[in-house]
């Protein structure tokens, strides 16, 4: 299979990455090369094989629901691009 330019733009949009026309062209070439490598996988008979999501087949650990972290809002927000009164600032989304 082979990807198309509109598909590349669509995937970039889903991934929230701005992409120029020139970048989309280069990316298309690279992705098609990579997918040629990946496609070989389709020839493998995996009927009845359980997908392996994780290296260890262990159940998620459960823990008591209790406060374990102290409030470090100031330290955490000191590294944010823009904050005000303890809030993260982003462009207005509701008119």
């Amino acid at each position, binding site marked *: 299979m082979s990807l198309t330019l509109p598909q590349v733009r669509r995937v970039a949009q889903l991934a929230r990455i*701005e992409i120029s026309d020139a970048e989309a062209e280069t990316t298309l070439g690279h992705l098609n090369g990579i997918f040629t490598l990946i496609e070989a996988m389709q020839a*493998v008979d995996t009927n009845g094989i359980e997908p392996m999501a*994780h290296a260890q087949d262990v159940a998620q650990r459960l823990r008591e629901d209790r406060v374990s972290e102290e409030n470090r809002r100031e330290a955490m927000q000191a590294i944010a691009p823009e904050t005000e009164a303890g809030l993260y600032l982003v462009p207005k989304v509701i008119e």
Partner: protein
Amino acid sequence: MIGKPLKELGKALADKEISSVELTQLHLDRIARLNPEINAFITVDAEKSLAQARAADARIAAGLAGPLTGIPIAQKDIFCARGWRTTCGSKMLGNFVSPYDATVIEKFDAAGTVNLGKTNMDEFAMGSSNETSHFGIVRNPWDRSRVPGGSSGGSAAAVAALMAPAATGTDTGGSIRQPAALCNLTGLKPTYGVVSRWGMIAFASSLDQAGPMARTAEDCALMLNAMAGFDEKDSTSLERPTEDYTRDLEQPLKGLKIGLPKEFYGEGCDASVMARVQDAIAEYRKLGADTVEISLPNMQHGVAAYYVIAPAEASSNLSRFDGVRYGYRAPEYSDLADMYQKSRAQGFGAEVKRRILIGTYVLSHGYYDAYYLQAQRIRRLIANDFVEAFKQCDVIMGPTSPCTAFGLGEKSADPVQMYLSDIYTIAVNLAGLPGMSIPCGFSDLGQTRLPVGLQLIGDYFGEARLLNVAHRYQQVTDWHLQQPKE
């Protein structure tokens, strides 16, 4: 003291032959001299390192030292370290000063080691040559026109150039073992779940695992003793009894069964690499080991499955970088969506974007079954091959990398060529097994002498056995002691 194994450094510190401040300063001096060209470190902070060294000296004076107290260790810049800039090799985190410590960093602090600085790496650990770092390429100390491997290329180059006694690395598809091979180091990727991933910036969470990079297997064992252990902050950390990874180092190898997968010994590997690997196998036979041919029939699909699974997980993990809570935010944008798109377009480099796009595509509606689930089924087949193989042998051996260090820029234009440099290491991550690379000789290309790595793969939780197998070889060979010319 430069180039000495950790055990000797520990003894010299305990015997007061040298202080941690002096030892740290010696290495800082080498970094100041060599790093401008080799570029193994992204961040060096002499004040911080020396403060830790003074604390270590106090601890030694008080008689409270452990085996690593006072020893400077370089930390891959993927580990969050409180108060240290932690970039993960990305412009996205170019100004990120971590407000907390990774568990690995906490554990090294508890052991009393000195953080010598943060090492260069491929951006978000995505690469096999250290050429995708936003902070510049790293040069291989054995030949400065060549790559050190990746993604832990800065850690490898730092130890190889004797700027650090040892370093940490992380390995998602070969990122400890391949640079170890290309820089003549001993590197260990533990069984998935043995070392905590808390505070280690995530690439592909079901594959990522941290481990040591050092000169000898014994050094790796001492490092792993400090790094391993259950951590309730990592939901995939395994609850297991504490191990002393040095305990079996001296065990004789008589009767050891070495599996040689025929898939590792076919086409696709440079003859000069294969010759050194065969020499190493012959050396193991002399040590009393027996070899048996085995097969890992599904390994050939490992690279394809990996380049679905790892990008899929990365596309999800890296969605957190949106320019809101930390990291890079574009200077100009029209609205919220535009802010996300521009921040991510400007903050990520080309390889990271490529992998996010692959991951987004394979997880998107209509493609999930054909790619993601198929890759996970192949992952199971690959893991099953290893289970079968370990019924016939104790350890698997083969090349770590199909080639020695390649030239800067040689593979960076073609992602597929770059991806194939991990052909022998990827299956180990997919299965979650422990793997090592140890120096096994050199390939001589005219004037250039380039290291070759032997890969050792163990069964689950077989780290102590692997370290034993590596250590005994290092008792009868001196490849690991060879150092590059300055």
